[in-house]
């Protein structure tokens, strides 16, 4: 396989200290600890885990929004950690990110057109007219007509804003998009719409996703391969097929066991307590 992105031995830790005294302690908190994986072209690599596992830090470290302590990051054969600030900025055209909360990831003072056009203005040599035409095309692709061009984020719903964020992320034709819980804040029916959009875009354009989520059943819909993270480390990695049918690590099994069943006849979490009378256990536990 000729991977698009190769991550090796990535580490990021923070010194723990007292916020009040400002003194730094000797203890270190390892947010990301020796993480390595590869992402192929057109592939969705999911990173799942519970809160505090280090998923979001990992996503940000890959884009160097947070600088890692050590490790290697190779994108299309070039070493991302060797880039200087200017080169790093230009590399943003190839690697983009979609955040969980579209209300805070879009500038409230920029119109929708300006937000979507910003990467084109900053990272490409496109002229103004060409840019405007491209923005209209991008918005249309995510299902928003030109009525939205001059609107502002507060006028749009969460689902619409996330579409705008997607349009912005795909504007420069990136090869990789890091999606950090992109649908966690959305309602059920809207969630399905946005996931289907991401899937369609991947098929059309061969984009790779690193899909960060706490929700295993959601990830199962679009991940080709996934990694389960806990306490900064990947505890298990594998193809989605294998990982869901035959999880090797106890923690993965525990996560899978905790997912509510979607069939009321086959409950997983609540095991027929109705039958085994549990009255009087109040004091026992």
């Amino acid at each position, binding site marked *: 396989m000729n991977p698009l992105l190769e991550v090796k031995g990535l580490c990021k830790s923070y010194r723990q200290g007292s916020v009040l005294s400002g003194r730094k302690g000797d203890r270190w908190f390892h947010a990301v600890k020796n993480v390595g994986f590869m992402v192929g072209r057109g592939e969705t690599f999911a990173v799942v885990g519970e809160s505090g596992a280090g998923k979001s830090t990992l996503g940000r470290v890959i884009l160097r929004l947070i600088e890692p302590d050590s490790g290697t990051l190779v994108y299309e054969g070039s070493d991302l950690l060797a880039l200087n600030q200017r080169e790093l900025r230009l590399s943003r055209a190839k690697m983009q990110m979609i955040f969980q909360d579209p209300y805070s990831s879009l500038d409230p003072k920029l119109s929708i057109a300006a937000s979507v056009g910003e990467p084109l203005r900053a990272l490409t040599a496109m002229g103004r007219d060409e840019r405007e035409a491209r923005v209209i095309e991008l918005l249309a692709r995510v299902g928003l007509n030109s009525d939205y061009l001059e609107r502002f984020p507060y006028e749009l719903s969460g689902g619409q804003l996330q579409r705008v964020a997607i349009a912005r992320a795909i504007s420069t034709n990136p090869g990789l998009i890091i999606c950090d819980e992109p649908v966690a804040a959305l309602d059920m029916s809207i969630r*399905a719409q946005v*996931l*289907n959009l991401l899937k369609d875009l991947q098929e059309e354009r061969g984009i790779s996703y690193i899909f960060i989520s706490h929700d295993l*059943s*959601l990830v*199962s819909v679009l991940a080709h391969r996934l990694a389960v993270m806990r306490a900064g480390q990947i505890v298990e990695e594998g193809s989605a097929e294998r990982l869901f049918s035959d999880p090797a690590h106890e923690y993965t099994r525990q996560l899978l066991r905790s997912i509510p069943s979607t*069939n009321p006849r086959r409950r997983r979490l609540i095991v027929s*307590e109705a039958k085994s009378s549990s*009255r009087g256990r109040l004091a026992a536990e």
Partner: protein
Amino acid sequence: MKTAPLLSVSNLTIQLRSSSMPLALTSDVSLEVRSGSTLGLVGESGSGKTMTSLAIMGLLPFACRIGAGSIRLGGRELIGMSREELSTLQATEMAMIFQDGARSLHPAFTVGRQIADVARQHLGLTRRAAMRRAIEMLDAVGIKEPAKRAEQYPHTFSGGMCQRAMIAMALVCQPKLLIADEPTTALDVTVQAQVLRLIKRLQHEMDLGVLFITHDMGVVAEMCDRVAVMYAGQVVEEADVTTLFERFRHPYTAGLLGSIPTIDRRGRSFGFIPGTMPGLKTRPRGCRFSDRCAYSIPAVCDEAVPPNEKFENSSVRCVRAAEIDLRRLPSEPAA
């Protein structure tokens, strides 16, 4: 089986007070909760599920008022009751827990004190007896070292523990009805599983009627005996849980079930509902789902608000419920 329901809400309409033309947040909502059983209230944000539950608790914000309908708890009408009477009922007969346990606890008082205060106020216990009761409750909800924990402040509790403490506080006066408003949405899956089990266990021990508000169909399948699906301020389908999952009749319910990502449906693009839920002022005149519904036909669905139609195990608010065939969804393979 056919005993009088613990809670019965009928034809509840909640209106916004302000505007000249009264806008209805919910209209004609009817629900029943029986002792020892769980009614799930599902719907997306803005469907009116939280407003309905606040109305039951007597906690509607000032901007809203009850326009019509009745709410009866154990045979007593709650609408029109004085503030004092309601305040007593709010602990001893019914109690509510919220999504964010950490933010529902007061940060400046110890957890034990907050639970004990409820017991002192409503059970007339002495300070010492109330604290003993609080510790018992913390123990009952599975908090280890309850006596030590009771003296600690909420910030030292994890999210799951805060939710357990909230449950302890809600149940300290042994109410008959528990309203749980998305109690596990903010929790990690493994912690969610523990809290759901806890609620189920306490329900059995105390014969609690539970009104469980959630948007997660998986949680519904695990927890509920009956389910009411809300959309744009109305209950569009009400059924027992297996009927709802297997013989759903409202197109919106079908869409919701189709939107669940499940491991069995891996890789396949899942069905979804186009568009978004209409706002208060833009609701269609007839069936409120008609503008997003694949089965809607002009001059029928957009004419009049459909009444609740009764079926064997469900009631459905759709004029075409009897004639349309909603393809059975592949949920989990039958055992």
